[in-house]
C-alpha cells in the first residue's frame, strides 16, 4: 500500500467518523497498524529465505521462552517454500530440543533428542503452568497467529483488497505489536504485571516488551534492531501459518492460465454453435 493511499484512507476515515461522536472515539481506539511491504505479497510473492532463517533465530532465542509453535514440525524447516535449510541442518536444530516420549518398556516416560518428525515442543507443560508464570494469561501458540489476528479495513478498502490481494493484516499487526510498546499516556493506570502497547486491543498487555536492539546476534549483516527483529520474526510466523503459500500461488497461476484459456475456447465454441441461431445468445 502506497503512502498516498494511507493519506487517502486516513482522510476518508476522518471524514466518515467525524460526525459520529462518541462511537467514533471508540473506533479511534483501535489503531490500524501501518501496512508494510512484504516479499511474499501479491500473486508471485515468495518468502525471503534469509529473513525466515533470521526470524526462526529470533523465535528460538526470545519468543520460545514463553510461546509454543506446536503445529510446526522440524522437517518443515527443510521443505520447499520455507526457510530453505538442508535436511541435515533441520535435523541438527531438532536435536537441540528435548522431546518427552514414552512410555517405554518399563512403563516410564523419558526424554530424548528431537527428530525431524517432531513438532516444536511447548515451553510449558500445561496451560495452568503458563498462567502461573505469565500474570494469569496463556501466551498464545504462534503457529497460526499470523492468520489469527487482523484489524478492520473498513469501506472501501475491504473491496479494493480483493483486487490488490492485500492480506497481510495479521503480519502487519505482529510487527506493530512488537514495536508498539510506549509509556502509558498521562492518567492511564495499568493493571499490575502489564505493559502499555499502542496496538494491543485494550492496550494493557501481559507480555513484557520482548525485543531490544542487539538482543539477537545476526550473522548475515542484517541490522540488529527492534525493527528488523520484529519484521523477521513476523515473516517467519507468516510462513509458519501458511507453509504451502508458495506452492499455492504457483499452482494458482497455472490454474488461472488454464481456466482463462479454457474459458476463451469455450467462448468461441459457444459463438460458433450459436451462430445459426439468430436473436439473443
Amino acid at each position, binding site marked *: 500500500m502506497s503512502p498516498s493511499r494511507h493519506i487517502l484512507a486516513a482522510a476518508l476515515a476522518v471524514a466518515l467518523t467525524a460526525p*459520529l461522536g462518541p*462511537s467514533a472515539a471508540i473506533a479511534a481506539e483501535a489503531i490500524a497498524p501501518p501496512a508494510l511491504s512484504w516479499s511474499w505479497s501479491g*500473486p508471485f510473492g515468495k518468502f525471503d529465505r534469509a529473513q525466515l532463517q533470521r526470524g526462526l533465530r529470533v523465535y528460538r532465542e526470545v519468543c520460545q521462552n514463553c510461546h509454543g509453535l506446536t*503445529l510446526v*514440525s522440524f522437517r*518443515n524447516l527443510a521443505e520447499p517454500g520455507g526457510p530453505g535449510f538442508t535436511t541435515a541442518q533441520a535435523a541438527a536444530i531438532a536435536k537441540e530440543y528435548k522431546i518427552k516420549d514414552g512410555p517405554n518398556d518399563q512403563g516410564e516416560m523419558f526424554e530424548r533428542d528431537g527428530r525431524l518428525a517432531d513438532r516444536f515442543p511447548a515451553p510449558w507443560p500445561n496451560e495452568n503452568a503458563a498462567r502461573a508464570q505469565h500474570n494469569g494469561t496463556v501466551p*498464545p501458540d504462534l*503457529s*497460526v497467529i499470523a*492468520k*489469527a*489476528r*487482523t484489524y478492520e479495513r473498513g469501506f472501501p478498502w475491504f473491496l479494493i*483488497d*480483493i483486487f490488490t*490481494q492485500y*492480506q497481510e*493484516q*495479521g503480519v502487519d499487526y505482529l510487527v506493530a505489536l512488537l514495536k508498539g510498546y510506549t509509556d502509558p499516556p498521562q492518567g492511564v493506570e495499568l493493571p499490575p504485571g502489564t505493559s502499555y502497547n499502542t496496538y494491543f*486491543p485494550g492496550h494493557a498487555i501481559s507480555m513484557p516488551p520482548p525485543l531490544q536492539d542487539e538482543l539477537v546476534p545476526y550473522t548475515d549483516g542484517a541490522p540488529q534492531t527492534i525493527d528488523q527483529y520484529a519484521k523477521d520474526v513476523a515473516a517467519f510466523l507468516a510462513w509458519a*501459518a501458511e*507453509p*504451502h503459500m508458495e506452492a*499455492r*500461488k504457483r*499452482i*494458482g*497461476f497455472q*490454474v*488461472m492460465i488454464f*481456466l*482463462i484459456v*479454457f*474459458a476463451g475456447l*469455450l*467462448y468461441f*465454441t*459457444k459463438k460458433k*454453435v*450459436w451462430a*445459426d*441461431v*439468430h*436473436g*439473443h*445468445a
Partner: protein
Amino acid sequence: MSGHSTYQPQSRFMQWFERRLPIVSFMHASFVAYPTPRNLNYWWTFGGILSLMLAIQIVTGIVLAMHYTPHVDHAFVSVETIMRDVNYGWLLRYLHANGASMFFLAAYIHMFRGMYYGSYKDPREVLWILGVILLFLMIATGFMGYVLPWGQMSFWAAKVITSLFGAIPVVGDSIVTWLWGGYSVGNPTLNRFYSLHYLLPFVIAGVVILHVWALHEVGQNNPTGVEPKSDKETVPFTPYATVKDSFLMVVFLILLAWFVFYLPNYLGHADNYIPANPLVTPAHIVPEWYYLPFYAILRAIPSKLGGVIALGASIVILAFLPWLDTSRVRSAAYRPLYRQFFWIFVLVCIGLGWLGAKPAEGGYVIAARFLTAWYFLHFLVILPILGLIEKPKPLPNSISEAVLREGVPIGAPAPAPSGTKH
C-alpha cells in the same frame, strides 16, 4: 422429464438395455433433446453453476472427512494438519471453504434472476418452493460446516444460533438442551453437527433432482416471460445450453480460483484461527458474509423471540412469493414500476448484509430496522399492490416478436435437434 426424447438405441446391446432400464433415453431427453428457449441470457446459467458447486462441495468434503477428527480436543488441530501435512490438503480445505461462499453467491444470483423475470409464477410455483427449500438446506449445511474447525467463531456461532431456540416459549430451554446434547455446546454438539453436515448435502442433491424434474415438466421461463409458442422458439439443450453453461461455469471457476489461491482467508474470519474457548467471548461475533442480511434482521427486532420469528419469516416468506405477487406479467422487462422496486429490494438486501457486519448499536440499529421493515413490506404490501396498479408495457405475442422488436432479425428456423447423433 420424458417426452422429448428422440433417442434411438443403435446397437443390439443398447436396444436390449433400453427395454429393461430406459435410463439412457431418459438422460437423453433431459440433457440433450430438452428444448430450452432460444433467448435465454447468461443469468440462466447459474442453475448449472450451482449444480457444479454442489458437486465440488461433495467431492472436496468427502476427502476432507477422511482426515478430519470430530472431537473438541482434536478438531482444530486436525484441520490444521490437513492444511500442513495432507497432500494438497490446503487446496481441499480452501476449495471447500471458499466453495461454500461461491455456492451462496450463485444461489443469490439465481434467486434474484427468478425474482426479476417472475420465474416463480404459474406454472413454476413448486419449482420455486423447492428452490426455497434448497436455500434453507444450504443455510443449515453451511452453518454446521462452519462449526467443524472448532475455532472461536465456530464455537460462538454455534452457541449464539442454537441459543435462539431458547426464545421459544415454554419448551425453548428443553429444545436447546436437546440440540446441544447436554447443558452447553460441547463434544456431543460437534458430533451431531458433523453427522448432519455430511448428511444434508445428499438431501440437497435429492431436492435438486426434484427441482430439475419440476423444471423439465414446466419448461424454463425466459427474459420475455412469454412461453415459447413453437419449436422455432426453442433450441435443444445440447449443444446450445451445454456449451453456454460450460462457458460461464469456467468463468465462475476463475472467480473461485482467485479466492482459493490468492485470498483464501479473505472471506473467513481471523478469530476462527484461534482454538475454541468457552471462557473467552470474541469482541464481535459475526457470521459468514452470506448470512449477514438474515443476521441483521434477527438483531433489528428488540425482543429475542421477535427477532427469531422475523429471521424465520424472512426465509419462509419467499415460499409465498408466487401468491404475493399479483401481477400477471412475469418479466420485469415489461413492468416499469416493479423493475424499480426490484432494484431497491436488491439494495435493501445488500444494505442489510452490510449492517449485519456492524455492531448492533446507535444508527446501525435504526438503519437495520428500517431496511428490515422494507424487506417485509416489499413482499407484503408493495408486490400485492403493484400488480393491481401498475400498467405493464404491451407484451410481445411471442419470443420471436420480442426479438424482432429489439431489431435483431429473426432468421432461419431453429436447427433440428441434434438428438440422433450421439
